[in-house]
């Protein structure tokens, strides 16, 4: 028995990587987790793949330039599979920090899988590059984290709410229905929207309900919303929720004057395949960098990245999460370029130094003092159907708009 115990410890110890380089290291180790299976796989895999494309691209060019050593250093991406399990993710984060001794730690992409990394990274004073984990609790009293590739959840719905309060009210929108999935990401946005609408005081919320995140049929919910006769409907759910909601809405024949939902703008290809152009026409959504050409000062443009993605033949749909992974890579690139050393404090300083100075295909990179992302905003857009495709125009704020919103009669 004792022997077995020791053997299994020996197995664990074999993961240990001893050498910690001094001076210019032979390679820079980037630790990351992804979920190849389970509920978070559909979000996690595109982010992982986007990051991987950046690593491969960088290594093909001889590595990432690090000013502190004045040379290019090859990257080594160590990405373990947590299978959407938080318990597994926790040990793997610890594995990356304590055994693999990675130089850079990048969290998995959903808030649930990011959450377990937060205390571990903080405990080991390891800076956590958090691609898309928007959980508000992560940033409280924690200097060791920054949100890299999407904004904090209170920023997300700001323009949608502003548009309703402003243009919507002018067009005669008086009542709003909110239907949201009860999880951290969409629940927080629902609270934010509720707050914005109540603060403006121009619109009445006539329906405000949460449903479990695994809800897959909205027919009766849509009927119930219709019974309240709202002018505007905001559906805040995950990608599966949006697919089911928009399909059921189409099947029901029900129309609303203004309809907003999250994922048509984030995973446009996936929604298009599942809902079809006619189901998306007229829908308001977030315009992510997947549908808006920001002028990058660093890295590929949207089209260049899309070409690289298609060439990589990932089997995954191209969408915002793909860009989030690549953007994370670009932020790492610029961080390495500017850092004084590979020390975690230096990395932290280098990331914050980028705030307001970096523009990627994901938009301007701006951090608040807690490490929350506030630059890569999500303007409001609206779809129009064009044959078998859809077109997404930014309709708000006016400074970014390249189209005019159409509110139904």
């Amino acid at each position: 028995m004792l022997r077995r115990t020791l053997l299994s410890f020996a197995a664990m110890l074999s993961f240990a990587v001893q050498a910690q380089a001094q001076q210019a290291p032979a390679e820079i180790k980037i630790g990351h987790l992804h979920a190849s299976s389970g509920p978070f796989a559909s979000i996690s895999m595109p982010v992982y793949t986007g990051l991987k494309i950046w690593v491969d691209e960088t290594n093909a060019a001889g590595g990432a330039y690090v000013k502190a050593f004045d040379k290019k250093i090859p990257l080594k991406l160590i990405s373990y599979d947590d299978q959407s399990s938080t318990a597994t993710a926790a040990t793997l984060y610890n594995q990356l920090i304590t055994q693999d001794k990675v130089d850079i730690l990048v969290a998995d992409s959903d808030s649930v899988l990011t959450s377990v990394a937060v205390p571990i990274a903080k405990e080991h004073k390891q800076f956590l590059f958090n691609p898309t984990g928007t959980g508000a609790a992560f940033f409280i009293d924690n200097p060791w984290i920054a949100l890299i590739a999407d904004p904090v959840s209170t920023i997300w719905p700001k323009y949608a709410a502003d548009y309703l309060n402003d243009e919507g009210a002018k067009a005669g929108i008086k009542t709003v229905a909110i239907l949201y999935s009860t999880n951290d990401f969409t629940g927080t946005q629902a609270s934010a929207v509720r707050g914005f609408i109540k603060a403006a005081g121009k619109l009445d919320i006539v329906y405000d309900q949460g449903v479990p995140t695994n809800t897959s049929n909205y027919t009766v919910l849509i009927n119930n919303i219709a019974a309240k006769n709202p002018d505007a409907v905001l559906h805040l759910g995950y990608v599966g929720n949006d697919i089911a909601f928009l399909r059921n809405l189409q099947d029901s024949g029900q129309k609303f004057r203004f309809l907003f939902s999250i994922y048509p703008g984030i995973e446009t290809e996936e929604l298009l395949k599942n809902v079809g152009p006619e189901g998306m026409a007229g829908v308001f959504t977030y315009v992510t960098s997947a549908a808006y050409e920001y002028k990058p000062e660093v890295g590929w443009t949207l089209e260049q990245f899309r070409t690289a993605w298609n060439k990589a033949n990932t089997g995954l749909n191209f969408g915002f999460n793909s860009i989030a992974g690549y953007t994370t890579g670009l932020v790492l690139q610029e961080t390495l370029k500017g850092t004084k050393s590979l020390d975690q404090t230096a990395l932290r300083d280098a990331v914050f130094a980028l705030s307001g100075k970096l523009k990627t295909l994901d938009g301007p990179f701006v951090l608040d003092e807690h490490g929350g992302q506030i630059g890569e905003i999500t303007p409001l857009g609206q779809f129009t159907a064009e044959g078998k495709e859809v077109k997404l125009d930014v309709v708000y704020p006016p400074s970014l708009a390249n189209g005019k919103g159409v509110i139904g009669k």
Partner: protein
Amino acid sequence: MLIGAIISGLMFGLYFTLVGLGLNLVFGVMRIVNLAHGDFLMLGSFAAYWLFTLFGLHPLLAAVAVLVVFVAVGLPIYYGVVPRLLVARDSEMLSIILFFGLSQVIEALAAIAFGTSERSIPGRVLGSGPVSFLGQRLPSAWVFGAAVSAVAVACVYLYLYRTRLGTLTRAVMVSREEALATGIDVHRVSAIAFGIGIALAGIAGVFAPFMLGSVTPAMGADINVAAFAVIVVGTLGNPLGTVIGGIVYGIGLMLMQTYLSSWANLLPNLLLIAVLLFRPEGLFGRAVRRA
């Protein structure tokens, strides 16, 4: 809203009858708990998706193909697994664990083969626009789902009560030991019931891309919870009782969505516990209480 919820629930519940039907047949005949039921359903969904995407095959034809293939696949699975399982002292309990393992295998293989993206089939394939039913506007997919479910229930009834093999199947359901003693080839009867059971899951799966918006390899677990609630509320071990369970579940879910939407997931769990605790003798084919 109340009437709408009840009528929608009725139609939706008929589809969930189909979801639970095969699980109940397998439990009734073999007294094993097929925790991979939801994963067989998922395989049916992907079969329909690929048949439609590659060959434009209509879901009704896909359902026929799934029926044939799944029965054929079910037989070797039965012979490979169940006879060994049934000799164990606590086969009911062990079956939960074994089929959980099988569900993991199926989910893993599906994720490797199909990827993790959401898949669906356009709704217009089953007719465009809503259908009026008792003054309610319902998606035409629901009418399809409910009709296929009704046909499936009728076929299972005819099989059990109008065919020789069905009579033998009912004998095995009443008592496996006595069926064995009277010389019935219990394994043959059970293997066919197992094949039919997973084929019914597969057929339910064919319509899942319409009823559930979209499908992924990980969908099995949620389906299992609903299927168990349906068959426990109906009569566990009595396939035809599944109809009652499906309708109670469907109407219950729609009422929850209407009046207490964020608590809707509590419903199947509470229904299941409440029925098991308070109405077991009335609803089961045999006593489930012990001293």
